[in-house]
């Protein structure tokens, strides 16, 4: 691939202004084909999730006891499960659950984490030290164990799962944002803002936050994939989203394990959906990081 020239005019977005957003998309596809594949997958999942009601051939909750454990056919493209529910329809509606939980957890985790990281860096001194120690404590827990503990406290269900997944993400985001914010705090414009008598909140949100947006965005996309995976794991354990809601991890549980040999479609397709979704977010996040981190650019 030809080295991408990062010229002044491309920085100023003059390119984009010249030939519109199509040109921007074309350039992204050319320069970062992997990222483009990821973005395409993300768009696909969002479209499927949003339009589930129109796309899905069947009601994801409708039992059809006449065709239980039916193999993939023209009527049921990906077969049916032990209750005669259409697997494809459940996967399509499952995209909704995955996106809701993923986006919700990632937003909450990144927002709280960023605020903690920014304030920790901004105030410094004892507050910083104390925050760091508390974050260290959270770091010593494996992610899934922290999530399981939160689920045990709050109970199962989509809303609680979002909080359970967001919890372990907060300290990790806080650490990354803090380290970026430490250098931002020393910038003259922060001094200037302080000299102008702005309040702490305003300096943190209006002056520092925009300058650490790049790492936050990278973290948030990485979290999204991870959150979808974590939701699937929790649901698989029976501690996440509950039946009869359509969720990918839930579909891999119970009957899918029991009838894995005779009805493998139940075990294969939902897992494939999880993998593709997480793959899309990770691919996109990876390219985003490469694009935003100047040290890793092609020379």
């Amino acid at each position: 691939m030809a080295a991408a020239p990062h010229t002044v005019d491309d920085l100023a977005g003059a390119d984009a202004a010249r030939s519109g957003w199509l040109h921007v998309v074309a350039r992204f596809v050319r320069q970062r084909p992997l990222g483009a594949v990821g973005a395409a997958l993300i768009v696909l999942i969002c479209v499927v999730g949003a339009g589930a009601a129109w796309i899905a051939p069947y009601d994801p909750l409708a039992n059809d006891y006449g065709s239980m454990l039916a193999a993939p056919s023209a009527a049921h493209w990906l077969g049916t499960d032990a209750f005669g529910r259409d697997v494809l329809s459940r996967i399509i509606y499952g995209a909704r659950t995955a996106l809701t939980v993923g986006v919700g957890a990632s937003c909450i985790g990144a927002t709280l984490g960023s605020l903690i990281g920014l304030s920790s860096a901004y105030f410094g001194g004892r507050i910083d030290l104390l925050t760091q120690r508390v974050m260290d404590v959270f770091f010593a827990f494996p992610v899934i164990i922290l999530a399981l503990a939160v689920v045990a406290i709050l109970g199962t269900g989509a809303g609680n799962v979002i909080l359970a997944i967001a919890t372990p993400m907060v300290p990790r985001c806080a650490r990354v944002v803090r380290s970026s914010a430490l250098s931002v705090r020393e910038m003259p414009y922060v001094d200037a803002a302080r000299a102008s008598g702005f309040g702490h909140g305003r300096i943190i949100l209006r002056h520092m936050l925009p300058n650490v947006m790049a790492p936050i965005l990278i973290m948030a996309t990485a979290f999204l994939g991870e959150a979808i995976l974590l939701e699937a794991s929790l649901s698989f354990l029976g501690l996440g989203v509950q039946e009869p809601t359509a969720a990918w991890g839930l579909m891999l549980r119970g009957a899918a394990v029991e009838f894995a040999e005779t009805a493998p479609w139940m075990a294969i397709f939902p897992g494939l959906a999880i993998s593709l979704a997480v793959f899309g977010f990770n691919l996109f996040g990876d390219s985003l990081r490469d694009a935003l981190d100047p040290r890793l650019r092609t020379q």
Partner: protein
Amino acid sequence: MGAYIAKRLLAMIPTLLGVAVLIFLLLRVIPGDVVEARYLAQGSQFQSQELMDQERAKFGLDQPLWKQFADWMGGLARLDFGVSMWTDGPITQEIKLRFALSLQLALMASTIASCLAIPLGILAAVKQDTWVDYAVRVFTIAGLATPSFWLGSLMILAMLVVFKWVPPMVFTPLWVDPWQNLQQLAWPALAVGYRYCAVGTRMMRSTMLEVLREDYIRTARAKGLWAKLILTRHALKNAILPVLTVISTEFAFLLGGLVVTEQVFNLNGLGMLFVEGISHRDYTLIQALVLLVATTFLAVNFLVDIAYAWIDPRIHYR
């Protein structure tokens, strides 16, 4: 160096104390306790209040929180982890065999992850932005995206369909029958190792890219040194440290965090024990388990830092 080691070891104490307080409180916030869980399991939740209070008193659950915590800490100071509230067996006994399993699995998975990550990461960095780079990244990111519990069930399914054979379902310790043991643990190790190689590969690629742009690499190249020699002698040595950090940190988490994979392969490891302990509200067991995992995590981090100073003479600790 001695002073630094002492300082680091001392710094672990407040963190571990924090972990202890956090898990102690989290457990008490979870609705229900071991007495209720036991009666629920026996199918008779309507026990007389006195009987339940009596049971609670046996575990010291009627004491004020600070007293319970102090008792636990006092026991720890005497290296006494107490007994499981659910089985009444000593906790060290409950954890011992499962720890052996989890440790072996974590070691095997980390080895597989490093064996994949280091060469793949170097390859991707050297061939940056070619199809080789893309192929490596797709391979590793796919690993990160695939739930290892799903990959695990597919592996079992494939073996069942193709070879009419499933891995043994009962754990045999390595020292009893190594062949039997490896037959069982190789598959989960492969599924988990593949997943975790992605993080290492990504780190290897980016540190290698950075190092390859250093002046001394250019100098080495300019004086006509073999490309291979430059890579292994000059670049790898400087690029590998962060990779080792990432892989060892992952290792510490593999020890207690393989909850779902253990479920699929029917492995009775620490992860499974944790899930059981939570559902039984077995406070003493969970507390010991979490403290064990946290201590391992801190110890690994500590060892990595010491190793840094030992490998890299530029680093001085005070």
